[in-house]
């Protein structure tokens, strides 16, 4: 088939910028500073198990929050008139058109101890909140940045749901609640799974959010890896090993999650 040729540019791109780097990471992870094969990089990771735990915990909480906020939003959205839907979808995407860093800085000025949020609370005579530089601020930052990635896949699945299936459920005696739990929700699982993947994977490896909002106190895997490659404790071998382990854990997580879906209802990973 001649049309296969159209895929070659991407193939070249993928080889150069995806496959080759992964091979490099693997090579680095299994080699010592002076060259030669070693497992010692992996034993070095044990010291950072707290960072691993924190990263997965914070990313998990943020993903759960995105799902709890995003699913109802997507569901309500899909019920609106088509014109309003288009406007609302655009509003949800709007923040994504702004620079990621800028958005996080903006959030910083809101959450600061003397920031907009606390000024507003003071105005209402409410007690001040100390959010900035806590894990909570990191989670808020993640939710803020990644929420659209949860809403959009769920919305696109629900909006395409065959209306007649809902009518069939009602026709067979299912109340609106039962109709939701037995038909709408199970059929929106593919959207939920890809939403979870699209939020959890970037969240677990993020580094800017934790630095800006967590104040360096809640170091995450992304920060750790950055530090090993660019920072003070320069050690690309250890950094590669950490990156590799993180990748494997993420893949395992996704695979476990896909057990909830069957057949086509799987998330994008593997």
């Amino acid at each position, binding site marked *: 088939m001649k049309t296969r040729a159209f895929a070659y540019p991407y193939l070249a791109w993928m080889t150069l910028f995806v496959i080759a780097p992964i091979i490099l990471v693997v090579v680095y992870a299994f080699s010592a500073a002076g060259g030669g094969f070693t497992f010692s990089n992996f034993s070095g990771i044990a010291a950072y198990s707290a960072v691993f735990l924190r990263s997965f915990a914070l990313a998990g909480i943020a993903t759960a929050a995105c799902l709890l906020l995003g699913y109802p939003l997507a569901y309500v959205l899909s019920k609106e008139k088509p014109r309003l839907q288009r406007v609302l979808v655009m509003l949800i995407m709007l923040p994504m058109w702004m620079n990621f860093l800028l958005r996080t800085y903006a959030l910083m000025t809101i959450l600061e101890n003397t920031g907009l949020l606390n000024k507003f609370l003071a105005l209402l005579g409410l007690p001040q909140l100390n959010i900035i530089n806590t894990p909570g601020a990191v989670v808020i930052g993640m939710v803020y940045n990644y929420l659209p990635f949860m809403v959009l896949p769920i919305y696109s699945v629900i909006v395409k749901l*065959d209306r*007649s*299936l809902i*009518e*069939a*459920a*009602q*026709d*067979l*005696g*299912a*109340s*609106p609640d*039962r*109709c939701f739990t*037995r*038909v709408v929700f*199970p*059929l929106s699982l593919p959207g939920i799974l890809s939403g979870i993947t699209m939020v959890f994977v970037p969240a677990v490896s993020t580094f800017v959010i934790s630095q800006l909002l967590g104040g360096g106190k809640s170091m995450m895997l992304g920060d750790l890896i950055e530090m090993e490659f660019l920072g003070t404790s320069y050690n690309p071998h250890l950094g590669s090993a950490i990156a590799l382990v993180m990748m494997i854990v993420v893949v395992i997580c996704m695979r476990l999650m896909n057990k909830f879906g069957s057949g086509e*209802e799987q998330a994008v990973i593997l």
Partner: protein
Amino acid sequence: MSKELIRLSNVTMAFDGETVLDDLNLYFNDKEFLTLLGPSGCGKTTTLRIIGGFLVPTSGDVYFDGVRINDVPPYKRKVNTVFQKYALFPHMDVYENVAFGLRIPKEEDGGGTDGSKKKKIRLSNQEIDERVQEMLGVVSLKGFEHRSVSSLSGGQQQRVAIARALVNRPKVLLLDEPLGALDMRLRKDMQQELKRIQQQLEITFIYVTHDQEEALAMSDTVVVMNEGRIQQIGTPEDIYNEPKNAFVADFIGESNIVDGIMREDRVVEIFGRKFSCVDAGFAPDEPVDVVIRPEDVDIVDLKSGALTGTVTSVTFKGMHYDIIVDFKGFKWLIETTDFCPVGARIGIKIDPDGFHIMKKSQYSGMYGDYSSYSAEYDEIGDAEYVEGEEEAPEAEE
């Protein structure tokens, strides 16, 4: 005979100011097989959706067993629907699809309208299993319990949809063009199957279709609809033999419809010639529409023919020929077993009971002329044409 179960009383339905149903009055008897028949856009599906509870009429009332149910949501109605595209749940297997309605706890029936004391009844798994198995037996799908619905053929999916609706033992089953997506042979089988199920379970079937053959073959009562109004209600025989207006005559079967004048009781004049017929009760010299079914015309030799015309086209249909005959510019469709070549001059004879006289209506002059025969034939063919197996080959000589 049987008692009335559902009544639509002065039901009007409008979408965005466009009237889809216009002051409909219709009742449905218990254990009846009733078909709503009409071309697309005639309001038949809208009527069905009003009964199912998916639409609330703009004005008018819906009664079930004498109780007004306008505001009762679909899930509280004792009717079940077989949807046009089956609407089977793709995330459940055949068994779970059929069991869906049974797994829903039901509020106890009776005990008046005291809302506070309603007890939820839940069927035991054993009971559910018995009823699912029984229903799979009725639709001949035993052994398919754990197949996924997407792996089934159209006809099998259709039967799952029927089982899923019937397992709830509804008083009324609504069927929205359920055989529309099946090929011709399967359709004929399913028609008989549906009729058998209806008689076996003694349930009211309200069936929507645009296929007149299907309607005639299955129904106890046919309701012909057009433009949001009922054109005629009657048994299949009534509808075919005594159509009320030109629309019904044309929609049900093939009809030649010509202008005539009722000269006196049992005498009608067409093409300037008087014929004796069996109809009476019209005013003297009243203009009327005269229906002559293609099979009621006899071809005779030129001399003994009451009318003479020229054959302009011949189509071999297997059992007979469809020929188009030109009578003074008006083209008739005639069914005959005698072969008449194109261009032949023939005479025709019509027995008195071959004429059916109708009062003039808004549809007068719109139907029943076969001048553009091939175009009309295509249009009729569309409704039934599925995979070409039913199309008769053209006569080749």
